[in-house]
């Protein structure tokens, strides 16, 4: 029996890979309901990437809707997402706030200098604690927060032109209707 173990392990890996291939064909993106949807965004107070003496908190951002994009210079998927953000940041109609997650701020600055900075403001969550409050599994993740500080939409994984058109833009358009 123990001699079959390597084979069984391999079968499991293959099952995972078949799943991965099928998933890729049927799901262009992955959206799962988050317990945060339609709940107030968690409290946070984080330093700014380009001026670590200043901090921004949840309260400071109230009044206007914003997109919070969790990223890291170490994250390969974020690199995939980055050109999409560069192209769409100005077209969202809401502020794009970056959260540099579990990352070294200097490396992040270099990364942004090389690939461009799509964000209006960037907060630093170096130890990942704010990420825990937001329920971040990994980077990238994107949260749409309305003017009252309520999370209206969440996307796990990279934003692509397709899922921006299909989901994010409708969600942003919806904001205007809900608000007085």
């Amino acid at each position, binding site marked *: 029996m123990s*001699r*079959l173990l*390597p*084979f069984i392990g*391999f*079968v499991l*890996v*293959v099952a*995972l*890979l*078949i*799943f*991965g*291939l099928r*998933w*890729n*064909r049927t*799901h262009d993106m*992955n959206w*799962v309901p988050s317990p945060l949807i339609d709940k107030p965004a968690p409290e946070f107070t984080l330093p700014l990437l380009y001026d670590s003496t200043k901090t921004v908190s949840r309260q400071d951002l109230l009044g206007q809707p914003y997109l919070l994009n969790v990223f*890291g210079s*170490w*994250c*390969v*998927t*974020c*690199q*995939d997402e980055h050109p999409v953000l560069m192209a769409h940041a100005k077209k969202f109609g809401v502020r794009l706030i970056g959260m540099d997650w*579990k990352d070294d701020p*200097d*490396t992040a*600055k*270099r*990364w942004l*200098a*090389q690939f461009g900075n799509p964000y209006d403001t960037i907060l630093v969550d170096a130890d990942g604690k704010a990420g825990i409050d937001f329920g971040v*599994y*990994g*980077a*990238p*993740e994107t949260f749409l927060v309305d003017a009252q500080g309520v999370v209206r939409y969440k996307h*796990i*994984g*990279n934003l692509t032109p397709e899922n921006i058109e299909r989901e994010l833009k409708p969600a942003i358009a919806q904001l205007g209707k809900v608000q007085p």
Partner: protein
Amino acid sequence: MLPELGQFALILALLLAFAQCALPIYGAWRGNTALIGLARPAVAGQAVFVALAFGILTWAFLTQDFSVAYVAQNSNLSLPWYYRFPAVWGAHEGSLLLWILILNVWTVAVAAFSRHLPGALMARVLGVLGFISCGFLLFTILTSNPFLRHLPALPDGNDLNPILQDPGLIMHPPMLYTGYVGFSVAFAFAIAALLGGQLDVAWVRWARPWTNVAWAFLTLGITLGSWWAYYVLGWGGWWFWDPVENASFMPWLVGTALIHSQAVTEKRGSFRAWTILLSIFAFSLSLLGTFLVRSGVLTSVHAFASDPRRGIFILVFLGIVVGGSLLLYAVRAPKVAGGKPFALLSRETLLLVNNLMFVCAAAMVLLGTLYPIIGDMLGIGRVSVGPPYFGFVFPLLMLPVVLLIPFGPFFRWASADWSSTWRALRPALVLALVAAVVAKLVFRHAASWHAFIGVAAAFWVGAGIALYALKRWREVPAGRRYTPEMLGMILAHFGLAVFLAGVLITQATSVESDLSFTPNQTQQVGGLDFRFVGVQRVQGPNYLADQGTVEVRSGDRLVTTLHPEKRQYSGQQMQSKSDIDGGVFRDLYVALGEPLGDTAWGVRIYVKPFVRWIWFGGLFMLVGGLTASADRRFRARRSARDEAVPAAATATA
């Protein structure tokens, strides 16, 4: 006309590969010497046609035949001739053809250098290699034909990805593939042993030199890749835990375990089943790497353009090759442990620990690499775990390896003497501690503890291995002191010490800064004065560049003048080209950022002490692996066996 001939050559090669696989294996089973004898001619024939196909594709690039779709997609008229060669393997289809070519080179080498091995065993080994070749040729012909026409021919092509237009890329993929594919030889020997039921230790002795050479080339390929990432990608990093890097690193980790386990099996007869399993794993991970890179199942900065059909094909092939061999293992693996007994304190135990640690590390890397798919499966979304995970777990797993390495050579087989080993190694421990204290004084500005650990670990491993070399020198009469195998071991382990020093000192003491410069402004970084002279336009062979000039001075002495560039290639692609003043003890790395305002520019400056030691370490390991495989012992025993079994030799001829 030629591209059609190329495709025809591929089809003929496929037929010969099929013959090379089916007939000799059947012959070996039935004891039919005529069929066994077919293996070598089939190998030669297949190699000729594969080489012909590869030559024709290269010719299409050299003559810029844009009626071939693959050529039009990956080169254009302005591409200099010396980049038309690497352009052949610059994308999926051509690199697959390179993979097949290298597999054929290995197969021909095995066929040529193993004339004296038993005919039935060789028939099986060449048959297994033929089966692998079959799979890849079929894959190329069905899903990734590089000779596909694009008619009418385009007047000009796209461009080769500018990241790939670099001397490093000419060598990196061939070396990496040579290593990857080379593990197929150890795999073929293991499968041949299982098929033939010949589970004595002889096949391990014959497989060892091939494994060492494959491992050495894989080491070189990874080292070149890391060096290329360092100076081309422009972040000054040397390893990113990217899925594609991991794909090459997993076979390396298991390959490292395999060469140690093979040593035990050959010399002591122990770990037989384990060696077979590792041979299967090492090559399986090479195949899995191919799948991960080409199926688009994971996103990566180096990912090839993907096509779901390709993913399914490789997955099926992977299932047949790996699933089949693991089933064969389950049925045929040696039932009894075998080998000579050993005590807890013995070289065998240490090598077992080495094996466990390297296999665990490979499993850990595999888990991290597949994590995005696991995330999908559990419904939590596609996310990368990245360096925060790898950077934490990997060093933890390697720590015991580093601590135990110096004991390895000193411990005897079967039963080691602790007190004599301890006496012999004490100077290394003292030296490591003293060096760490000195490092603490020298690198007093370094905020991190990495430098001290790095110096201590490097001295512990380096001095430990040097003490062993000294012991052999003192105790053994001249002429028998160092066999190539032992010398290779000493070099490779010494390379590890050099590598450790490079990694940890660089990590702790590098100075990295992004500054804004106006022309003729001088700023200080890491104790050196950097004067930014200005930026001018220069015309390259197939790009236009903004070229900066930065003078570096130490006091009044001019250290060097660097010219980082931002290049605009014809395909509208921008590429930053850093300029590096390299040295044994420190690199000065300057990259040009964005223009800031009218005359000011962002400039990125790194001072990286000891960074080259990372790659020097890899080179030591390369030389070590090659030296060990040149051991006369492998050949001497073979010729002795030759005389003992002339019947087998004549059967092969």
